[in-house]
């Protein structure tokens, strides 16, 4: 257990993930044991099992944006950040 303050992020699910999770988003309270990173958020979601475990399984291509900027697994997330999860983009 760590002493860092609690971190809650505003999740946004887009495109296929919005449909798979049957939700446009939610607020996620990161477990106190989880690192405050993009990877920590993904791990917390995978731990739920079901569609979350399936869609976010290692090897599935998932992109993450933190506050509208593309982010990598090690990038930090802070309290109240907007964290969006989506498949590789297909516009243009």
């Amino acid at each position, binding site marked *: 257990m760590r002493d860092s303050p609690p971190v809650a992020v505003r999740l946004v699910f887009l495109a*296929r993930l919005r449909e798979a999770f049957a939700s446009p988003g939610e607020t996620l309270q990161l477990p106190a044991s989880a690192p405050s990173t993009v990877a920590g958020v993904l791990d917390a979601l995978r731990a739920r099992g079901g569609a979350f475990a399936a869609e976010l399984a290692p090897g599935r291509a998932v992109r993450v944006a933190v506050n509208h*900027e593309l982010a990598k697994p090690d990038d930090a997330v802070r309290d109240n950040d907007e964290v*969006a999860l*989506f498949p590789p*983009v*297909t*516009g*243009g």
Partner: protein
Amino acid sequence: MEVRIQEADFDVGAEIAALRKGDARVGAVAVFVGTVRDVNEGDGVAAMTLEHYPGMTEKALQAIVDEAKRRFDVYAMRVVHRVGELAPSDQIVLVAVTSAHRGQAFDACRFVMDYLKTRAPFWKKERTAQGTRWVEARASDDAAAERWER
């Protein structure tokens, strides 16, 4: 506005005219228009829905345009991308660039399209005779964007 996201169609001729207007330094205009194909992955496409991520989309497109301006010697750029319901042959995206010379105009236009295809948060969902499906990203699009990193 250099970047626009809209449901409405756009007029390519009018967009080019607005981009060039009043700038007689321009010698080259490179333009790309992406359109809905009636066949994808071998299946007939009856309709398409374009979803995006409001809030991020404008920033992502503007960042791509700004990067293109840093890399290439261009005067003006414009990106228009549609969202919502589209039919085969409908216009999806416009990228237009003005420059003194054609090489820089072509490069900047292609750069924006290659980055847009891999970094701008749009997703296509197709309706075919087999039902609806999300379009899968192409490895060739990643490769095209990576060429600019070398």
